[in-house]
């Protein structure tokens, strides 16, 4: 009973917080394949000459208050795979002095005989789809600075470490980095390198710092570059506001309500049972040695 009294309010509060969040999810990886490539997505995505541009239209269902976070969501992408999650070198990322330390980065440690900065599979497979938003034919600026953790920018990625020899190998993975900007400013890389623990994850792409009115339509021009077709992964574009509990996540609210409700129901049931047929307390005949006199 007590539990249900505590649980139900917390559950309601969490659920409300989650429901308050306005979220737009748009899955685009199948729709952004030109008709002539249908059934052969792999060759489309691997063909460097094909036109990857794709337009999407999103409708804002409810008023969205700024800041609106722009995420990309990948499904069935194992950033937590053992080969992948360890394939980085924190020392190299931190300081330019350690450009040569590429231990753990195998097989993306060196290319053409010199070390890769940043090395490793994670950096190599950096997500490279791009999004351009416009509202009523006016470009909607997406602020891509400040999307990574401050602690990462300050301590983990050095401001004197510049990409070197990156994506120069035979196999091109993901996005190329601007070799003139230090790693600490390449926030998309920093975000990407915070590996996700689950195969379905969202990563912050940027922030829209204006309010969006309900029913307004946003058109998105995106470059569909990233290969998720070889493993059948989904790609989604997500625009979401946030609340005290974070983004839209009904789980905790529902979980609290379920347990609270169950307790309430059980408590009621026990009360009814007790009223109908009270059990005698302290009945010694239940004690084990009274049941079996010899005890052996």
């Amino acid at each position, binding site marked *: 009973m007590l*539990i249900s009294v*505590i*649980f139900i309010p*917390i559950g309601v509060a*969490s659920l409300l917080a989650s429901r308050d969040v306005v979220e737009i999810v748009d899955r685009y990886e199948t729709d952004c394949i030109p008709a002539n490539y249908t059934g052969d997505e792999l060759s489309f995505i691997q063909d460097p000459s094909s036109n990857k541009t794709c337009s999407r239209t999103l409708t804002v269902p409810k008023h969205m208050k700024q800041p609106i*976070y722009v*995420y990309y*969501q990948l499904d069935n*992408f*194992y*950033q*937590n*795979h*053992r*080969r*992948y*999650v360890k394939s980085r070198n*924190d020392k190299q990322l*931190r300081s330019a002095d350690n450009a040569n330390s590429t231990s*753990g980065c195998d*097989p*993306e440690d060196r290319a053409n005989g010199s070390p890769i900065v940043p090395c490793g*599979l994670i950096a*190599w*497979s950096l997500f490279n789809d791009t999004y351009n938003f416009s509202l009523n034919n006016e470009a909607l600026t997406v602020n891509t600075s400040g999307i990574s*953790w401050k*602690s990462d920018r300050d*301590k*983990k990625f050095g401001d004197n470490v510049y990409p070197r020899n990156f994506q120069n190998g035979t*196999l091109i*993975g*993901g996005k190329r980095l601007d070799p003139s900007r230090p790693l600490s400013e390449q926030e998309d890389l920093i975000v990407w390198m*915070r*590996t*996700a*623990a*689950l*195969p*379905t*994850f*969202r990563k*912050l792409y940027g922030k829209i710092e204006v309010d969006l009115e309900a029913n307004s339509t946003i058109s998105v021009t995106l470059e569909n570059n990233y*290969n998720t077709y*070889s*493993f*059948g992964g989904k790609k989604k574009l997500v625009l979401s506001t946030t609340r*005290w*509990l*974070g*983004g839209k*996540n009904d*789980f*905790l609210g529902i*979980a*609290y309500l379920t*347990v609270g409700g169950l*307790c309430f129901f059980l408590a009621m049931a026990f009360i009814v049972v007790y009223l109908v047929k009270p059990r005698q307390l302290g009945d010694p005949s239940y004690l084990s*040695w009274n049941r079996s006199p010899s*005890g*052996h």
Partner: protein
Amino acid sequence: MRRYVYIDDSDQQDLYCDNRISNRKYTILNFLPKNLWEQFSRFMNQYFLLIACLQLWSLITPVNPASTWGPLIFIFAVSATKEAWDDYNRYLSDKQANEKEVWVVKQGTKKQIQAQDIHVGNIVWLRENDEVPCDLVLIGTSEPQGICFIETAALDGETDLKTRVIPSACMGIASELLHKIKGVIECSNPDKDIRRFDANLRLFPPFIDNDLCPLTINNTLLQSCYLRNTEWACGVAVYTGNETKLGMSRGIPEPKLTAVDAMIDKLIGAIFLFQIVVVIVLGIAGNVWKDTEARKQWYVMYPTEGPWYELLVIPLRFELLCSIMIPISIKVSLDLVKSLYAKFIDWDEEMYDEETTTPSHATNTAISEDLGQVEYILTDKTGTLTENRMIFRRCCINGIFYGNESGDALKDKELLNAVGSNNPDVIRFLTVMALCNTVVPLKSKSGVISYKAQSQDEDALVHAAARLHMVLVNKNGNILEINFNGLVILYEILDTLEFTSDRKRMSVVVKDCQNEKLILLSKGADEAILPCAVSGKQVRTFVEAVEQYAQLGLRTLCLAWRELREDEYKEWSLMFKDANSTFVDREWKLAEVCQRLEHDLEILGITAIEDHLQDGVPETIETLRKAGINFWMLTGDKQNTAIQIALSCNFISPEPKGQLLLINGKSEDEVCRSIERVLLTMKITTSEPKDVAFVVDGWALEIALKHHRHAFTELAILSRTAICCRVTPSQKAQLVELLKTCDYKTLAIGDGGNDVRMIQQADIGVGISGREGLQAARAADYSIGKFKFLKRLILVHGRYSYNRTAFLSQYSFYKSLLICFIQIFFSFISGVSGTSLFNSVSLMAYNVFYTSIPVVVSVLDKDLSERTVMEHPQILFYCQAGRLLNPSTFAGWFGRSLFHALVVFVVSIHAYADEKSEMDELSMVALSGCIWLQAFVMTMETNSFTILQHLAIWGNLAFFYIINCIVSTIPSAGMYTIMFRLCKQPSYWITMIYLMELLCISAHCDCRDGPGASA
């Protein structure tokens, strides 16, 4: 091989080791290799070493090698430190003994050297109250009779003074000449028998006629004894250093393994198998996933052609990931709590014997749990159930009973009158009482005589004789001085025919100094004396007297004497001397020779001595019996006495409630029939609420054990009570063995040297530090002051120890499984590739700190108050049946960990999904979930809280946050700032609260369902 010791001969100095005592196991140089070798001989350690080595292979290791190396080194360091500390203490005490200054004669001159420089053959001089530095053969003392007194308490625990005499060959050598004495002692090689020393001494001219002189243990001063009441003594060193009798008997006893330990080992084996299965299944799944899915995941970049061992990589990774399933710290925490249990026993004030100021003591710190599982108690009678304080109560002299009316012969007017009127029978009776013993009278300065006796019976007899005006005043070498009614009578002791438990009698040959008559005085058990009576004389009255006294529970002794002819004695004396100087089977030969003198005895009478029951004995037996423990009494006393004592201490119930079945017979057939009859009766009566007990004597037992072992075993299982009388020490041990083979937990309790074998044989040996010395207490695992403390030892200490160990071990498994299951679940969402969810530091700290500190505090937990347990001993059934630690309770804990892991995992991955699914954060959420769970489970399982427990549980939780916050401030650490971020998120706290509440509810349902682990 024999040893020839040349007295004070520097040539043979180096032949034998010097007197440096070394109890050390290690030296500084060999400590590390030897200790490591010892630790690695344990299977668990080998396993962890293998894991740790595999972790060095970076391809397969899921975590930093430090997560296993850290705890492994920590645990090794703890054990090694403990060993080193013990060894250092041993070294210090050795050093103290080795550097003690002693006076030694070397090349005819006396000088002071350190004890460690004594060599075999040196003459060592001791002064009063000096400790004997090595085993010596006495050659001279300050006493003109050539005797000295020593206290052997450190050797055998007996507190009385023992007399040691110089060999006849050295008799009368002036002390100045002793410096120059030369000779050879031929003795056996060092052994550990402290009651035997078979040697010969031959002095070189000019000292004596080159005659061979036999040496016995009575001519020796053994290491660690103290010289008392003697101004000085000197002796030749024969055994030195670690070759002394004491040094040889110092051995490491076979470690006893408790049932709980065996069960834990079994469970570890089961977990190990489970782990192998998990590894194989996940390994296969991982390889399949790799070949089907991972090849498509271009970003993982699996090479198309791997090395040959590629198939093994994933299984090995899982092996490493699952290695935490077996808690690395379990042995260390178990050792730690076990030594705490032992300390609790040592500190227990309620088991402190005020009378003798002896606290209880746990010598063996490893087996306290077994105390809670005892099923059979085998107890000695004298000194264990009784006080072993003998009081002379009645006697029967020449057919006349004294003391029957008053119950105290010393106040019986008739006896006093008879003494007053110089009744010759009575006088002879008193003479035997006063003379036939090995008691040493000591006269204090004020003239009060006190007696030092090895046997309580002798003490009682001498005291009683003194009360009847036959006072043993002085023992001056071989001359005994008796004061009878103011009249001084002198006797010279010619020979002592010693008491052995086989002979069951002792005799002395004395010469009456007034009329030069030779007399043999004997006393002993009736069945040992009466057959030696002069033929044709009626012994019926004595048999009846013995019967009558035994009915009353009194101990009887039969006194007899015989006048010896001069020539008869002379002839026998030679044989005796001969037997005394043999080396082979000396004891047996002596017994045979003694037999030749002890015949045609004139029986004088019977003494009856009362031995009080210790207080609390009947209650203790009753309580423990209610707790389902079966009692067997094993005694050397005779049947009737044993039965009487058994009745008076609630051991058996009187008719008609109880029934006694006798097993007797002298031949195989008789015994067989007897056993069958008893078996039959027992089977019939099992349905009736009747206390059936069987009684067997030593003779029948011998036959039963030899020829009808099977039937007797069956009987032993059926019977809850048994009395075995007239049994020898080895039979006692055999009975223990018999019960042990039936898989019963046995506890043997005794107080004397004759119980030592049984105590060592039993699962648990308890010694009572009583009047018969400390021999039993030393050999035992536990020593207590009184029998009544046994109740508390078993019901309180045994039970708590069992409960606590059961909890602790299963909890250790639980927490390891919990974290391991989470890892396994995580592997399903990480492509079965063997990624570790938790970082290395957390894993290591989880096992070593976060979870072990609160558990260790659970040794303070008391599920029921001590009083409740003492009042309701039936509660012990739970422990006896092993209901708190067995495969099914373990299955409960296993299920619990699986369930908890599932809940923690599912809740964390859902609460931290999508944009929050950052690896480091999620891992910390899951880990904090586990830590909260630990606190929660500990709180649920703790029955009684003390401040310390609260401190450990909640302090540990706080400790977790503090440590992680500290780690979070280190930029180079993987989890930099993670903890601060989490603590700021409301969703983190809401998740934690949710986990707790959810498990709280499920725990409630758990309890309601009954058999859950929290019984």
